[in-house]
């Protein structure tokens, strides 16, 4: 926990905000991290996207119906 991550709005990464660490693009791990959660909705969405890409269409996401 601790390396400063930043979220930038941008068109890269399929429309998802790009996350950088010390100015460099950050590859979001599928397992996520506390730092990503601390980033808020941007980090949360980026993590879920990474998770989805890794696991395919059956990735667990909360069912909010």
């Amino acid at each position, binding site marked *: 926990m601790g390396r400063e991550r930043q979220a930038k709005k941008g068109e890269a990464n399929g429309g998802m905000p790009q996350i950088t660490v010390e100015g460099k693009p950050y590859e979001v791990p599928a397992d*996520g991290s506390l730092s990503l*959660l601390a*980033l808020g*909705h941007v980090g*949360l969405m980026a993590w879920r996207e990474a998770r989805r890409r890794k696991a395919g269409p059956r990735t667990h996401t909360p069912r*909010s119906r």
Partner: protein
Amino acid sequence: MTQRAAKRRRILLIGWDSADWKTIHPLMDQGLMPNLQRMVEGGTIGRLATLVPPLSPMLWTSVATGKRPYKHGIIGFTEPTADGGSVRPVTNVHRRVKAIWNMLDQRGLRSHVVGWWPSHPAEPINGVMVSNFFQRAHQPGHLPWPLPEGAVHPPGLRDEFAKLRVHPDELTAAHIAPFVPDFTKVDQTKVPTLATLSRIIADCAGIQAAATFILDREEWDFMAVYFDGLDHFNHGFMKYHPPRRPFIPESDFQLYKGVVTAAHRFHDLMLGRLLELAGEEATVMLISDHGFHPDRLRPERLPREPAAPMFEHGPYGILCVKGPGIRKDHLVHGAGLLDITPTLLHLFGLPAGRDMDGKVLQDIQEEPRPIELIDTWEEEATKRELQPSHAGGLHMAAMGPEWLAQLVDLGYIDDPGGDPSQAVPKTIRENRYYLALAYLDGGKIPEAVAELEALHGEAPGQLRYGTSLARAYLRTGRTQEARRVVDEMREADRLRHEGGRQENGRDGNGSGTPYSEPARLRLLQARVLQADGAGEQALAILKKLEKDPLLGTRLQFRIAEVLIGMGRWRQAVQALERFLAFDADSAKGHHAMGVCLLKTGDLRGALQHLHEAVGLNFNMSMAHYHLAETYNLLGDYAAAAEAYAVCLHLSPGLNRARQRLAALYKEHLDRPDEAQALLRQVADRCQGGPVTVVSGLPRSGTSVMMQALQAGGMEVFADGARPGDESNPKGYFEHKAIKALMHDPGIIAQAQGKAVKVVAPLLPYLPPLYRYRVIMMVRDIREVLRSQNEMIERGGKGVKRAFRTGLRDALDAQVERTDRWIGRNPHVQVLKVDFKDLMNDPEREARRVSSFVGGQLDVTAMAEVVDPQLYRSRLDGTD
């Protein structure tokens, strides 16, 4: 940042439940909370005094409204459902007053609120509101997780916010390992710690996601975000925080010792993101509602009663505020939860309400502006009304029992059990108890007593109710009633033990186990003995309890209180030194020390401690009173007046402070009009009475006057304990309790509508709560002295003495003091009756007296009991 936002102040209010500087400062020193560190260095910090009871839904509502719980209406963790058939977690439906977001809404400002406790159902404000029912998951992740109705305003954003929640089942080792590195060693079939951790982390993440979503896309003037995570982390894991306490197994300590640190680092990361999104031009205020003891002050064991976890809470939360116009690298003193909303309003350039219980913290501003006040925000027309109707549908079944289960697991409420019909009255009664505690904290003693009397009557087995009632009685000088309640509880507890019934978790198995009275009752007994003037007996009890390892050094404060009551100031100082070495942040400890040093003449020392006390807890009215007394003795009358004024603002009923302030204005500060106004207030505030007081120097005819009043038909307050004798053949008409008026002024309550004898030296101790009609017996000093001497001789105490000049001077001085006291107190009417006139023309004097007390007395009967034969010790020698 938009141009609009650049011109107007924006304030982000972040709540971290139970954050405590004692935990945070060491972490900052280690560089583990860099974002908070930057706020601290660039802003103002302070302690934030909490309220009693320190229960979060009540506290966070006080933060948001600037008012105490008995004003705002949120008084517990749970509440009955609208149909009265069950209970549910507390909602905002019963909040009776406006919150800061309602006030700002009325002035056209845009507010957003995320997760405030309580904030369900979401209010239709000019902005986004996400309620505290938003983030919690109660079912496994593979099951549907619908967003509760009313969790989001505007409703059109429901679907977007629903996706921002984080389910605990989503979390991975990457989220858990920073908290519990060796999490694989945890046997999750036996202990649910990892599930608990996951839940807390997920909840925080959901709130953070919602808050950042709003900050990213919405215009805003004010935003309030509440995180309950640290409170859960602290309650669950502070016991493992280093250094290891002897009763914590080493294996558990090694597993969980890093949880609290990791929790704070996680919160710091989230803070950093919120600061980034808010922008440098925003004012950010970070607060907590109470502290959390990370050290020896945390009890080893919690009592078995609802809301017992609050005993782990510390009395001071945190305050950290940074932004344009806020002082940098500054420490503010005397701040409390009630000050947040008044301060926010002031920062927005809006008035605070006079009906708010807090104050504006001007000291945080680089250039303080004058404070604007309006009577109240409640009468302004609202643009939008609350829509609580759909809250009626929040039945427990719809919410799922998990909502309440968590509160039960945390120990905040008793298990409502399978029978909802039992849960409702229990909830109501528990909430009334919290309301009573809030009344006590706010100085509304009669209201507190009324609630506690009812509760004690309904549930005499609940020691908490009786204990609080007895303490409330003692605060108002009703010692006899306190004694009665304590005796009842002690007897009931002993009978419970002998009867073999289980109570309070102790087995009363009747198997011959020796009865051991609970420490709580013994402490209370000591308090009553102290109030009764039996200090030695009280000390004896406390000294025995000192050996209890759970009470230990905490008792030093109680011991000091007893010693103070006995006037043993220096011994009290020693006890307080031991206590303050244990708890240096105790406001009551510093207050008590200040009083002791005041009494021993160390005025500078007294000032230091009293300032410390009010700096820790500004709302201690008596600390301000004693501060004023100290400044008075030092001759700093302006400072004394300021302190009396603060005391009166906090405790408007403290007439004694009002009297002192009036004397200062008149005698030292040349403000006679204000002095007169205060004295009129003293009279106006005397709601009780009238009490007819017969007074004068001893042997001035007070007994004969009491006899005459009784003969005339007035009831007298006397106990007959002192029968007539040669000095007073017809009796003394005294009440023993009046001799202890100095210690127990509450006894006067029993004398309302009656006549009571109070000798002149004790008149100043009459509580300024009643109107008094004083019949002052006047007699030539020489006759008084002669009569006193003769009485002493009759008692066999010595030979006839010559007049003692010193004694005469003392009596003259007493007469002057009495006249001055009467002159200073407009609630006291006086009729002087010359003893000689009474003896020579009893009927005329009886008419005067009857007219003075309302004209209802039998004047003839009064005159008949006056026996001139008993006019002895005459100066003219005709006796």
